[in-house]
């Protein structure tokens, strides 16, 4: 993995537009991982099946990989495996013998193989060796001198040994202009957003792929703040405890969040319902992975939308933020804490494994928000007429346990209650409360300054609608689809009026999601605003969004539709 990270950075530094996807199995060590590096002219993100250069350094997968590999692909193989491929142009690297010359230790020798293929790849892409060597020195500077020297030599050997097709002459791959490059993982940006947004309590339970959120939060807290002891994080005994503890912290005045994935969200349902009904603020970040049940823990999906939006039994509805880039992962985490406090309700953020754990290249750093921390309407001073759950406005003032004056005290409960918080089974009292809660959450889009990502193509009849990290396929879709289309990436639920206006002004909206049943589509259709035409395009194999397969599906629907229109009687 380290060699791969080095390689992607080297390529980015030489000016290429790079996107990487790491496919790793649900295992600690011993099973194969695949690292896909995509270099394109126009910042294409997302996944692709088409492989131009294959590096086969895993004995367990090499034969199967070569069987499935396009015949045009060039291969860099570990020569020790003695794997031949008649169909492909192959560069065989004599790893063992090369390593023998470079270092004596058995464990070091094995690691040198990776730098050998890295060198070969760099040659294939016509990257300058001298500069790459400089990068090796800085990237691996913590290694002992003899190991570092061996690594550099390994890189050089690989470079020298590659003598096949040079991709730099291909028109497909052209170097970008000089720009500053940054690499971010979504989870780290979420952690940054929570930290900068004033989260003071984080309660969590380890689960792939969200564990790194709070772990990074802790690390950033130690490294970047003046007094790390001001913020408390705690790994609880399970997700139920994590959610209830976050609720307890939020209820008593802290800004609290928890981070989990699908299985954890299933467990947190009851706590979210209590947060909703008792109007207690806290944030839940779900970094989605393939479900259902244990599912594919190391594969991505967007299949928790319905669960998140409607969490808990009974009539509930929750604001859900849908970040699609590292910047948005930061922005939404920051904003979620404000929204939870302002609306006095649990706020959900849906990220996914691809955004959370893969490395996203961008030209330009994460920008710090200009927004401030807001705690919403809080009552501290004495007030004999205080009603914690007043129905006079959508959100009433909340008093803070122990810190507000005693005249503002109330007994919080998840059972039916009146405006003062006293127990009530009265039908009218209950109906009024539940109705207010609905309107309260629906007003979310007026409070949250989160504009949709919309690109209108004038006169385009058709549109492509996505949410979250699926946005990374937009550029490639433009090239592949062959017809004009408008584009919208929904940024949050409940959907804004803008979303419905967009949908209505297009004859057909292709709603593209990484789930089986078109969850966003379902939610939008169920709204009273739903007089629009859509067609769901679903990819749910656990891999990141693949523009080619998605384009193919869209095109076949488009062609069928065009045919139907032609055949219609005048």
């Amino acid at each position, binding site marked *: 993995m380290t060699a791969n990270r080095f390689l992607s950075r080297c390529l*980015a*530094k*030489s000016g290429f537009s790079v996107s990487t996807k790491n496919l790793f199995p649900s295992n600690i060590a011993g099973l194969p991982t695949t690292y896909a590096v995509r270099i394109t002219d126009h910042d294409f993100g997302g996944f692709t099946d088409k492989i131009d250069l294959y590096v086969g350094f895993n004995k367990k997968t090499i034969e199967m990989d070569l069987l499935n590999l396009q015949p045009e692909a060039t291969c860099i193989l570990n020569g020790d495996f003695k794997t031949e491929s008649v169909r492909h142009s192959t560069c065989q690297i004599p790893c063992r013998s090369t390593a023998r010359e470079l270092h004596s230790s058995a464990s070091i020798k094995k690691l040198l193989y990776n730098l050998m293929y890295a060198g070969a790849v760099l040659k294939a892409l016509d990257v300058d060796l001298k500069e*790459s060597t400089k990068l090796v020195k800085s990237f691996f500077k913590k290694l002992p001198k003899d190991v570092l020297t061996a690594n550099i030599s390994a890189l050089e050997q690989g470079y020298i040994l590659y003598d096949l097709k040079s991709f730099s002459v291909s028109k497909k791959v052209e170097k970008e202009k*000089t*720009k*500053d*490059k*940054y*690499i971010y993982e979504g989870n780290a940006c979420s952690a*940054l957003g929570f*930290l*900068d947004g*004033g989260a*003071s*309590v984080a309660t969590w339970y380890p689960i792939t792929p969200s564990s790194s959120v709070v772990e990074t939060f802790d690390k*950033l807290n130690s490294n*970047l*703040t003046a007094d790390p*002891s*001001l913020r*408390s994080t*705690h790994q*609880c*005994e*399970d997700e139920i*405890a994590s959610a*209830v*503890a976050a*609720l*307890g*912290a*939020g*209820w*008593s*005045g*802290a*800004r*609290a969040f928890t981070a989990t994935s699908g299985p954890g969200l299933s467990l947190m349902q*009851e*706590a979210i319902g209590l947060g909703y009904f008792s109007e207690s603020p806290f944030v839940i970040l779900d970094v989605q992975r393939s479900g259902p049940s244990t599912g594919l823990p190391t594969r991505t999906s967007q299949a928790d939308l319905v669960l998140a939006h409607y969490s808990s039994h009974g009539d509930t509805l929750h604001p859900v933020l849908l970040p699609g880039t590292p910047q948005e992962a930061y922005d939404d985490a920051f904003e979620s804490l404000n929204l939870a406090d302002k609306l006095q309700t649990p706020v959900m953020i849906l990220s996914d494994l691809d955004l959370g754990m893969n490395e996203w290249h961008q030209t330009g*750093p*994460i920008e*710090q928000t200009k927004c401030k*921390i807001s705690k919403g309407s809080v009552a501290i001073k004495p007030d004999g007429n205080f009603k914690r759950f007043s129905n006079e406005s959508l959100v009433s003032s909340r*008093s*803070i*346990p*122990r*810190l*507000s004056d*005693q005249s503002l*005290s*109330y*007994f*919080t*409960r*998840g*059972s039916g209650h009146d405006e003062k918080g006293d*127990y009530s089974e009265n039908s009218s009292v209950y109906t009024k409360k539940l109705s207010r809660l609905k309107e309260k959450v629906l007003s979310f889009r007026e409070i949250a300054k989160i504009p949709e990502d919309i690109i209108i193509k004038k006169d385009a009849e058709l549109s492509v609608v996505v949410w979250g990290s699926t946005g990374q396929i937009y550029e490639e879709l433009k090239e592949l689809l062959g017809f004009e289309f408008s584009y919208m990436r929904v940024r949050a639920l409940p959907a804004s009026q803008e979303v419905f206006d967009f949908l209505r002004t297009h004859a057909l909206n292709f709603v593209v999601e990484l789930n089986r049943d078109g969850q966003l589509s379902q939610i939008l259709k169920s709204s009273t605003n739903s007089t629009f035409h859509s067609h769901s395009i679903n990819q749910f194999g656990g891999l990141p969004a693949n523009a080619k397969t998605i384009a193919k599906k869209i095109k076949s629907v488009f062609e069928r539709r065009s045919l139907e229109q032609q055949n219609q009687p005048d």
Partner: protein
Amino acid sequence: MKGGALNNKINLTKKDYQGNPSTLCKGCGHDSITQGLVNAMFELSIDPKDIIKLSGIGCSSKTPNYFLNQSFGFNSLHGRMAPLATGVNLSQPEAKLIGVSGDGDTASIGLGGFLHLVRRNIPIVYIIANNGVYGLTKGQFSATSHKDDKSKIKRVQPLPEMDMLFQALGAGCEFAARTFSGDNLQLKKILELAMNHNGTAVIDIISPCVIYGNHVGFSKSYTTTQEINSPLHEIDIIIDGEAVKESELSYKLTPLDDKDHDVSSLSSALNLLVSEKISDKLHTGLIYKNNTRSNFVGAYGFSTKDKFNLSEKDLRLSKNAFENFNSGAKIGPKI
């Protein structure tokens, strides 16, 4: 000075510690617990402003409504009082927490949460109102009912009882006491000792259910409990000073009969509890008390400030810090 009524050291009367009238059944043990709390807090001159009341779901979880009207409280989820308390403690480390749970709430659905709260040593007076049944859902056995207990509808319990104190000691509890709602004096004193403990104070209070758990053939009826109740010691509480801090409350234990239980010995405590499984005695009083552990926030070195009061300045990242983050992600210009 309020006319006629006695004032404590912070000039409050007993009335200031009371809550709404109870809606529990007449004769319910839990009402004695409520009374014990009121009396104990009054005597210790605890300020209701500092208290946050917590509970789960159940008959006993309704009791926080019946004491400390002026304090904030949260009647939360079945079995989840413990994680809630963890969150509140993280948010306000100096808040005094009183939690009332039941044997349904703590010994079954809440068992995991309970043990982990104890393991953390969250400072809370954790009351288990123990009657062997689920009162609010009409009389099912709880996990603390005994083998051969008969329920109101003549079902027989084939499984042995779970002992919450035994469980708590296994999780690192440094204050474990058992008492009986029928022994008001002992109950009050145990509560006073618990309120003074800087960590999780678990009190198992046998608190009979007059409707579903008070009949012949039931281990936790008033009659049975009175018969087998075997107090370990007389407790004398000496309160000094203006307000009550750990150092200002001292106590003396005078062993009763020929019992010579060492409350500071974990193995003695465990042996005592194990012996109850084969004897017909129910030992009440202070089972174990020690002071070797930090409380939760202390163990982690977290600040004791109330999180609500942290300012924008405390919480926001400086421009430098943000740039620091970004420079770590930068891979430099074209080579």
